[in-house]
């Protein structure tokens, strides 16, 4: 206690005359504010204005839909296995197509997902990738579970990320 009092006293003693009259300090602070007002802005008028992230961004994971309209995924379940948050449920079924199996059901629980990107990293088919979509809001638990209808995204919209992966993965 005594120590604090001492230091307080000491500090008071330390102030110079200019500091004690306060006005130059106010001018200093305001000039910093003025300077930043004139600098380029980093904030945005969201949601009127939207942030478009770079390719390295990890938004919600999505499934790649080929131009034929089929999913690339073969329902191997590796993403589901690796997901540290147990967000992914995959149920495989047989298809007549050459790759034999496809996901009859593919669900990602966006309340569980932590956007780690491990699903994307483990996928042997480049079938699940992290998108640029960060707009995730729900009013109940069920809405947060995304099925194939919400997950499938045409491959052309995902080129950016796929190229990024090929370069750096």
């Amino acid at each position, binding site marked *: 206690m005594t120590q604090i009092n001492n230091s307080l006293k000491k500090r008071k003693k330390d102030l110079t005359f200019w500091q004690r009259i306060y006005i130059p300090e106010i001018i200093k602070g305001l000039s910093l504010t003025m300077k930043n007002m004139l600098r380029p802005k980093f904030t945005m008028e969201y949601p009127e204005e939207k942030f478009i992230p770079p390719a390295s961004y990890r938004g919600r994971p999505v499934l790649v839909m080929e131009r034929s309209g089929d999913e690339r995924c*073969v*329902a*191997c*379940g*590796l993403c*589901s*296995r690796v997901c540290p948050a*147990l967000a992914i*449920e995959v149920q*495989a*079924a*047989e298809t007549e197509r050459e*790759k*034999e*199996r496809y996901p009859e059901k593919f*669900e990602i*629980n966006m309340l569980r997902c932590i956007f780690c990107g491990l699903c994307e990293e483990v996928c*042997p*088919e480049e079938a699940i990738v992290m998108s640029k979509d960060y707009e995730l809001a729900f009013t109940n*638990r069920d809405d947060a*579970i995304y099925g194939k209808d919400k997950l499938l995204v045409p491959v052309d919209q995902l080129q950016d990320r796929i190229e990024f992966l090929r370069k750096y993965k």
Partner: protein
Amino acid sequence: MPKITIDGKELEFKQGQTIIQAAADYGIDIPHFCYHPKLSISGNCRICLVEVERMPKLVIACATLASDGMVVHTNSEKTIAARNAVMEFILINHPLDCPICDEAGECKLQDYAYQHSTGESRFVEEKVHKDKRVQLGPHVMFDGERCISCSRCIRFCDEIAKDSELTFVQRGDRVTITTFPGEQLDNPYSMNVVDICPVGALTNSDFRFKARVWDMSLTNSICTGCSRGCNIEIWVRNNEILRLTPRHNEEVNSYWMCDHGRLNTFKFVNASDRIDCPQLRLNGSLKKVEWDEAFSFLSNKLKQFSKNEIAVIGSAYSTCEDNYIVSKFAKNTLGTYNVDFIRHIDPSFADDILRTEDLTPNSRGAELVGVFPEKNGLDLNGIVRSIKDGKIKALYLIEDDILSFDPILEEYLKKLELFVIHTSNYNRSCDYADVILPAATYAEKNGTFVNIQGRVQRIRPAVATTELDRSLDGMSLSRLDKFGTSFDRWAQGKKYDAKSTWKILTNLSSYFGQKYKYQSSEDVFMDITRNISEFNGLDYESIGLLGKELSFDKVKI
């Protein structure tokens, strides 16, 4: 005894054993694809190469007889190099199918690729393509590209199923498996080739793409298809049984089980005709009620009959514990000696491999624990006759369908004043029942069965009912079971409101003023061991995973 030195350890072996067998006896695992302890030696995969001192070349451990003084190195530089080379060679034409292959996760080739391979492929040329998705028989799918030509499946059909159906055709890298002209892989044991195929070339058509092996829990149990009581594992995901596989027990079924057992003894557990709560027939139609209501209704009804008007039919499908309480309940609580059970015999099912003519898992057990008439009580035929005569007015049927025994009974069942049935699934007898109580299936309870050899073996719950909790009740847990919550769709598997018959009957007995102190099926079993001489000295722990022979030599007094 002759001695062999493997990796610096001097081990005794039996004359006539090969190096791989001598090593296996001491828990040393020499990699192998084509060798199987129950099949003849074919020595064609070469992964088991080992270095033997004073031999000019490496030898295959599966086909080289151990001899006294032999010095074997299973991890020397030369052996490892040879193993790498064999792996590389096998992988040359092996497709990168793991993501779509059901074997992934339990595949020897996958495991060995991690353990014994350099992890790099130098082969850049086009792989050989073969037929994929070939249905070799009703239950087995073949993928030619994945086959590593170990011939285990061929030898299994020739030597164990004793029905030669498979053969190699073509040569070199074109070699593949096919059935003989006009034949199918359809012997009663055909699906065992799926288990012994070291890769995913042969897969189970019934289980195809249903689940990945790492998402399931497995529980040691016993097949209920016949009185052999093959040891099995029950594979469950999201509280649903997806497949059964045989579990090694040299005394009972070795490594095998029959296709009937594998395919037809688990689907009813999750079928839509499960009875999900107690039901009473009021004014002609069935009404769902709480257990308490069912018990008080039933006990009031039962008290209206004299001893000789009641008959109780136990079940060879349910456990010793259940049947022991059935017999006690009948003889002590109801006071009737009209007690028996239905035998389901089909001589055409039996063979000289595993299958027996008795299609129930526990008829010996039911008999041993007291489900038989005593003191001039009626046996099954007598009971049926007296139902027809109208002398039996109340019938208490446990886990069976009496119409399967005598279809003509149908009109007489209508005349019964009280017909009670414990059953897991709807059966035709239910149409005439006044009270239906939902019984737990063999996959939802603890208990014991006595097989045809007089061996007592344990079943364990693999599927949870409403009164079972996977972790609190010590059931096996998959990764998903451990972390799932009630909000996860993959953890909301159906749980049925069903109880073991012993539990239903002890609860019901309390309405007759009789208190049983059993907390668990193990308590019931301990009571059996004290009162029934053949079971003396046993407990769940000593029965363990592989079962115990009962002692029949003791004289019954």
